[in-house]
């Protein structure tokens, strides 16, 4: 369970104070997913960086499983936009990196790791370097890395945005399969309405320039079979788009 209470983040420059996030309240139940959607520059990435422990100056409270946020205590799996793979480590070493840092070699034995890699279709790539892989393959390695950790919370920043449309949908399915198996509480940030609808149990809309959450809605379509092909999916995405547009328009007028 992730609990965010009244979170605010301000960036200070020499002459200016810029509010990136203000008064964010969010709860993600154990094993739930939350999609945060918003335009560029609305503070989506800031929100994720705070929960990832990368930004330590903030107001408000963040609790993960009842404990105050601390990257040393909790296991936080952070998957950056560019996959965050180390170019000087092989695929296998990249996947094991998290376990190495957490000093938890027992977390996943070789057999489990092999199985995970097989499920992701990267079992033959263990000795390659990231630069030898396609974008989709790198994405799979990044997924293997975070899921191998079995984190308390999984954070994904624009997870599949660099992939072509077909690969993206495939990766979304792969993500959901792994998520079902490992039951990891997940927060993902995206600017694709369809991605938010497909991957988010709940969807939070971040305002364009005030840095707060304007709407949180439960996603009735989440987890349904082949929902991407169903008319409800189109309807819902249309409705979501309208809500977002209205919200952002309002934000600009204020």
């Amino acid at each position, binding site marked *: 369970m992730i609990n965010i209470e009244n979170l605010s983040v301000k960036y200070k420059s020499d002459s200016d104070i810029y509010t990136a996030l203000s008064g964010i309240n969010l709860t993600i139940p154990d094993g739930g997913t939350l999609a945060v959607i918003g335009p560029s520059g609305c503070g989506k990435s800031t929100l994720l960086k705070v929960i*990832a*422990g990368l930004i330590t100056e903030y107001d408000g409270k963040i609790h993960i499983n009842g404990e105050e946020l601390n*990257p*040393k205590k909790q296991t*936080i*799996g952070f998957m*950056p936009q560019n996959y965050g793979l180390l170019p000087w480590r092989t695929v296998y070493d990249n996947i094991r990196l998290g376990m190495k840092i957490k000093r938890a070699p027992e977390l996943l034995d070789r057999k489990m790791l092999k199985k995970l890699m097989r499920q992701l279709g990267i079992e033959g790539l263990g000795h390659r*370097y990231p630069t*030898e892989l396609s974008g989709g393959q790198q994405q799979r390695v990044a997924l293997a*890395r975070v899921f191998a950790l079995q984190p308390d919370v999984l954070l994904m920043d624009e997870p599949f945005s660099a992939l072509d449309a077909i690969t993206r949908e495939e990766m979304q399915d792969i993500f959901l399969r792994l998520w079902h198996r490992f039951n990891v509480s997940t927060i993902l940030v995206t600017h694709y309405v369809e991605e938010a609808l497909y991957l988010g149990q709940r969807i939070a809309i971040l305002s364009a320039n005030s840095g707060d959450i304007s709407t949180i809605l439960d996603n009735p379509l989440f987890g349904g079979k082949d929902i991407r092909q169903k008319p409800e999916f189109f309807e819902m995405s249309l409705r979501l788009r309208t809500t977002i547009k209205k919200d952002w328009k309002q934000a600009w007028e204020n």
Partner: protein
Amino acid sequence: MGKLVGVWYGLAAIVLTIIWFVVSQIVDLPIIPSPVKVVENLADIFMQYIAIHSLYSLLRILAGLVLAVAIGLPMGVLMGYFPATDKFLAPIVYLTYPVPKIALLPILMLLFGVGELSKIVMIFLIIVFQVVVAVRDGIRAIPTETYYPLYSLGASFKDIFFEVLWPASLPKFITAIRVALATAISVLFFTETFGTQYGMGYFIMDAWLRVNYLEMYSGIVVLSLLGLVLFTTIDFIEKYTCDWQYKN
């Protein structure tokens, strides 16, 4: 491909030797002896006279190199990773970097004596700046996002060093050593003409004073081979440890 590279190097060696041979035949003076005679002489005297000198030279280079890495690497890491340290140390490094180190030799000999220490310190001074600047720049070139997944796992500085800083700056670090070693060898030659009875510099200059050109050339060949061995060793280490750079 590795074998092919070896063939090209062999061919180049043959071509250079032929040029040397032709020049020696045209000039026909004792100051440019034929390579055949030099090699014969080298085979005769290497174990008896030259080996000990080359060992001295090699040890001086290695001692200077180890010292330079021991001090330059941590300094480069500190300057590259912590901007506050860089602000403080960069001016010092930049103001001392362009001073021609060889010009400091008289001072070093007064401070550390004419023996081993001044020679080793000299080599250290030549290599250390290259190491500091290369490691610092190598670390600075790492995109910030590279650290994110590690930070979010609560990685310690030790983790950051071994997973990111060291492997990321290693190629530049090795290149710096390769460049600095070339200078270090020529400077070593110069320092070995003072206050020592051992070292390739001493051997070559001594042979020259005795007008024994065959021995002098033998010494030059050995000193060159010493450099070649060092370079190929460094190349080999680089190929082995930085192979990720060559994959695409």
